[in-house]
C-alpha cells in the first residue's frame, strides 16, 4: 500500500478544492454479490450490501440468504461491512434494497451453496446466471422468506449494546464540535473574532482548529477538540465567537419565492411533465391550493462520526446511507487512495434520506487530523436544523373540470426547491447546469394514476436560501397529497362517493386492489350521511415510483380546530413479501410520517436561516397522537418492490380529506393548525 504522510494544509487546500464529489450509483452486479456472502469455518457470513437504517433490511436479506443456502437462521452471521470489505454499492435510498439486492444475493447464495455441496470451501467463485424460478428463496419452498423472523441487532438494541456510530469508542479518543454562524449555509459566513486564550484556559481543552476543509456550503466553522463532551460546551462559551454573515432571510421571503399563484400569474412554469391541450381560462369546478412548508428529517440520532488517522490512512465509523460516498469525499479532500480510507458503516439511528451527504464525517476527520487523536463528533439538535438540509417547501395549485361524473381537465402547477440536485451538495453554477434536465425528485408522484381527459402538469424549481434535498419519499409525499385532496373535491363535485369515484378513474388494477381492500377493512360505507359531531373520515391512495401501491382510510375528530386522528387503515402492495411483519412496520412508520406531514412537521425560517433549536420549534408526532393502525398486506406474487416510502403518499391525503369531511373545511396549508382551521371557519 502506498503511503502518504504529507497531509499539510497546502495539500489539503488543493486536494480539498471545492469541486463537489458526486455520488456514484453502481448497479449491483453478480460478481459484486458474490462478495456479500462467504463461507467461513463451516458458517456463513452475510456482509450487508445496504445501510441498516431501521428498515431492518439485514433481517430481510438474511431470510433470503438462509433459504437460498438451505441453512438455519443461526448458521448465518450478519456483518455490517466497511468500504474495504465489499465492492462499491450505491446509497441506500429510494426503497430499492429488496427490489434490487435480494435477487443478486439469492443468486450468489445459490452459487455458494452449489460449491459447498461439491466440497469446495475455499477460493473465489464465478457468478452463474440463474432465473428467478430456479431460486429457492422465491420458489414457494422457503422456510424463512414470507415469515416474521427475530430482528437482527434487536437484542443489542434492547440491551443497549453499541451499534450506532456515536457508540464507537477508540483508545485516546477526544470529542469535537464545529460551531458555525447561526445562518443558513447558503450565506457566506465565518468566525470574525474569538477569545482563544479563554478557550485554552478551560479544563479539558485539546485544540482549536482552523482549516479550509471546515467550510460546508458557504459556512466556515471553527473546530474545537476537547477531552469530554461537556468541555466542548464550556470552550464554545469561552470562545465567545463573533460571526460574520453576508445575508438574511425570513419566512416571508421563502413563502413569496415559492408562491405558486405568483408564478402562474407570470405565465407558464419551467418544466412540463404533461402538456395536453386544455383551456387554461374559464371556470373550474375544483380550484384548490396546498402549501407545504420545509420540514426536518428529525432522526432521533443526530448525525455522528468517529475518525482516526494512523500511518496507513484514515478509519471512520459513521451512520450514513452511503459509506462509499463518505469514502470518496475523504479520498478527494485528504488526497488519499481508496484503500487508505476505511469507512465502517454502523446501524443508522434514523435517516429518512437525510444522511446521504457528507457533513459531520468531514468535521470529525479534519479534527482528528489536527488533534492527532481519534475524534468523535455528534451534531447538536440545533445543528441538525441549522446545518442539515430539509424537505423543500412546495406550493401547489390544482384546477379541474368535472363532466358527467368524470374528470375532463386537470391542471396541476407547483413550485418547489431542489431535491435530487440539492443545494446542500451543488453550488449554484453546477445547479444551473442540472436545471437543464430538471429534478426527478421534485416531479416524483406528480402524474396522477387516473384516467383523465386532458392534463397539464408543470412545475418550477427555485433555489432557496435554505438547504433542501431528499426527504422520505422525495416529491411523492407532497405531490400525491395535493392530488388526493383535489380528487376528493372532484368526487364531491361529481356527487360521488370518493372511493367509487377513484375506482372509476383508476387505470392500474393493483391500485384498485389496495383501494378496495382498505375500504373493506375500514367498513367504508358509500351511503353514509355527512357527520355533524366533528368526526370525519377520509380516503386516499397512490403509487410510489411506479412499483408499490398504498391506500389509506383515516378517521379524525376535530374539536375547536384541534385535529385528532383516531384510527388509520392501510392496504399495501409491494409484490412478493419477504418479511410481512417488517413490511407492516414500514407501513406503520409511513402512516405516522403521514400524520406528521398533516399535523406537526414544519420548520420556521427567521434571522438568516432555519430558526429551530429544539423539538419545541420542530415537533414530531408523539405517542398520544398516534392512533391504532390496521395494515392489510396484498401479495399476489408479483416481483418484490419496496415498502419504505409507499404509504406516506396516501396517509396525509386521507387525513386532510377526513378533516374536510368532519368540518367542511379544506386545509390549504400544512401542517394543519387549530389557528388556521378556526380562521377558515370564521
Amino acid at each position, binding site marked *: 500500500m502506498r503511503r502518504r504522510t504529507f497531509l499539510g494544509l497546502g495539500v489539503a487546500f488543493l486536494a480539498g478544492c471545492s469541486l463537489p464529489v458526486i455520488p456514484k450509483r453502481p448497479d449491483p452486479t453478480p460478481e459484486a454479490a458474490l462478495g456479500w456472502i462467504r463461507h467461513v469455518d463451516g458458517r456463513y457470513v452475510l456482509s450487508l450490501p445496504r445501510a441498516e437504517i431501521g428498515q431492518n433490511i439485514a433481517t430481510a436479506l438474511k431470510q433470503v440468504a438462509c433459504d437460498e443456502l438451505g441453512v438455519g437462521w443461526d448458521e448465518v452471521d450478519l456483518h455490517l461491512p466497511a468500504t474495504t470489505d465489499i465492492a462499491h454499492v450505491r446509497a441506500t435510498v429510494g426503497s430499492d434494497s429488496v427490489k434490487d439486492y435480494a435477487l443478486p444475493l439469492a443468486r450468489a447464495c445459490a452459487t455458494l451453496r452449489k460449491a459447498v455441496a461439491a466440497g469446495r470451501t475455499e477460493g473465489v467463485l464465478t457468478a452463474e446466471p440463474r432465473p428467478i424460478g430456479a431460486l429457492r428463496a422465491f420458489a414457494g419452498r422457503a422456510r424463512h422468506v414470507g415469515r416474521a423472523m427475530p430482528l437482527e441487532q434487536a437484542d443489542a438494541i434492547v440491551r443497549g449494546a453499541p451499534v450506532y456510530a456515536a457508540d464507537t469508542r477508540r483508545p485516546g479518543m477526544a470529542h469535537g464540535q464545529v460551531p458555525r454562524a447561526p445562518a443558513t449555509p447558503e450565506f457566506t459566513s465565518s468566525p470574525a473574532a474569538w477569545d482563544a486564550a479563554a478557550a485554552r484556559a478551560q479544563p479539558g481543552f485539546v485544540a482549536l482548529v482552523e482549516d479550509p476543509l471546515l467550510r460546508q456550503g458557504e459556512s466556515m466553522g471553527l473546530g474545537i477538540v476537547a477531552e469530554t463532551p461537556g468541555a466542548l460546551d464550556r470552550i464554545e462559551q469561552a470562545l465567545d465567537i463573533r460571526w460574520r454573515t453576508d445575508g438574511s432571510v425570513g419566512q416571508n421571503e421563502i413563502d413569496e419565492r415559492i408562491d405558486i399563484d405568483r408564478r402562474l400569474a407570470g405565465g407558464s412554469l419551467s418544466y412540463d411533465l404533461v402538456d395536453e391541450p386544455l383551456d387554461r381560462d374559464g371556470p373550474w369546478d375544483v380550484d384548490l391550493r396546498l402549501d407545504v412548508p420545509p420540514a426536518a428529517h428529525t432522526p432521533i440520532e443526530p448525525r455522528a462520526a468517529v475518525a482516526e488517522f494512523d500511518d496507513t490512512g484514515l478509519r471512520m465509523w459513521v451512520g450514513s446511507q452511503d459509506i462509499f460516498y463518505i469514502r470518496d469525499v475523504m479520498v478527494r479532500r485528504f488526497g488519499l487512495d481508496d484503500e487508505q480510507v476505511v469507512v465502517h458503516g454502523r446501524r443508522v439511528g434514523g435517516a429518512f434520506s437525510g444522511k446521504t451527504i457528507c457533513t459531520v464525517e468531514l468535521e470529525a476527520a479534519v479534527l482528528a487530523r489536527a488533534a492527532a487523536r481519534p475524534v468523535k463528533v455528534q451534531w447538536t439538535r440545533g445543528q441538525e436544523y441549522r446545518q442539515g438540509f430539509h424537505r423543500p417547501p412546495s406550493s401547489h395549485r390544482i384546477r379541474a373540470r368535472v363532466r358527467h361524473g368524470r374528470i375532463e381537465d386537470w391542471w396541476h402547477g407547483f413550485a418547489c426547491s431542489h431535491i435530487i440536485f440539492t443545494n446542500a451538495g451543488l453550488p449554484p453554477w453546477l445547479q444551473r447546469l442540472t436545471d437543464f434536465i430538471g429534478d426527478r425528485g421534485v416531479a416524483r408522484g406528480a402524474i396522477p394514476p387516473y384516467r383523465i381527459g386532458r392534463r397539464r402538469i408543470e412545475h418550477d424549481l427555485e433555489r432557496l436560501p435554505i438547504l433542501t434535498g431528499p426527504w422520505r419519499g422525495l416529491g411523492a409525499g407532497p405531490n400525491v397529497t395535493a392530488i388526493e385532496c383535489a380528487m376528493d373535491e372532484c368526487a364531491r363535485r361529481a356527487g360521488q362517493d370518493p372511493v367509487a369515484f377513484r375506482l372509476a378513474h383508476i387505470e392500474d388494477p393493483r391500485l384498485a386492489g389496495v383501494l378496495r381492500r382498505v375500504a373493506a377493512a375500514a367498513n367504508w360505507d358509500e351511503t353514509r350521511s355527512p357527520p355533524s359531531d366533528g368526526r370525519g373520515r377520509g380516503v386516499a391512495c397512490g403509487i410510489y415510483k411506479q412499483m408499490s401501491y398504498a391506500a389509506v382510510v383515516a378517521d379524525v375528530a376535530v374539536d375547536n380546530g384541534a385535529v385528532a386522528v383516531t384510527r388509520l387503515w392501510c392496504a399495501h402492495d409491494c409484490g412478493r413479501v419477504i418479511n410481512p411483519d417488517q413490511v407492516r412496520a414500514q407501513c*406503520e*412508520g409511513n402512516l405516522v410520517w403521514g400524520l406528521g406531514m398533516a399535523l406537526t412537521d414544519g420548520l420556521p425560517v427567521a434571522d438568516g436561516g432555519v430558526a429551530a433549536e429544539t423539538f*419545541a420549534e420542530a415537533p414530531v408526532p408523539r*405517542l398520544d397522537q*398516534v392512533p391504532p393502525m390496521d395494515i392489510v398486506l396484498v401479495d399476489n406474487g408479483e416481483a418484490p418492490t419496496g415498502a419504505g416510502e409507499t404509504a406516506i403518499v396516501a396517509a396525509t391525503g386521507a387525513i386532510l380529506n377526513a378533516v374536510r369531511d368532519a368540518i367542511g373545511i379544506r386545509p390549504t396549508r400544512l401542517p394543519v393548525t387549530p389557528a388556521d382551521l378556526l380562521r377558515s371557519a370564521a
Partner: protein
Amino acid sequence: MQLRINNRVHAIPPAWRDETLLATLREFLGLVGAKFGCGVGQCGACTVLLDGEAARSCLWRVADVADRDILTVEGLAGAGGRPHPVQQAWLDENVPQCGYCQAGQIMSAVALLRAKPRPNDAEIDAALADNLCRCGTQQRIRRAVHRAAARS
C-alpha cells in the same frame, strides 16, 4: 466521587464530575445504551432510572446524582443475561425500527410498570408521550408495554 450504577460502584475522576450523567455513562463508562437525542430533556432517548424513577440523564450533572441509585438499560437483564420482561416484550413485538429511541422507551416503560403494573392505553400514552420515536413504532410500543404488564 462514586456513582452507583446497575448495583455496581464506579469511581468518577474529577474531569468527569461536571459532565452530564449521559456523557459520563456513554463516554467514560462505556454504557452507551442511553442515547443523546436533544440534550435538553425533550426526547427521552437518554432515559435512565434514578431511585426507580424515569429521569433524563442529559439534564443531570454527575455531581448531583452521586448518592442516587442509577439503573440503565444495561442493568435490566436478569441472571445469566435473561432479558427483563420489558426487553423481552420489545423483542416479541419486534418493536425497533432504527432502534435509537428504544433504550429510552424501555426505561420509561420499566418506570411506568413499577408505578402502575397494569396501565391502560391512556396511562401508557401519558407516561411515554415525551419519549419520541421518529420511525413510527408507537403502536408496537403500546402493545409491548401491555405484553410486559401481562407477563410480570
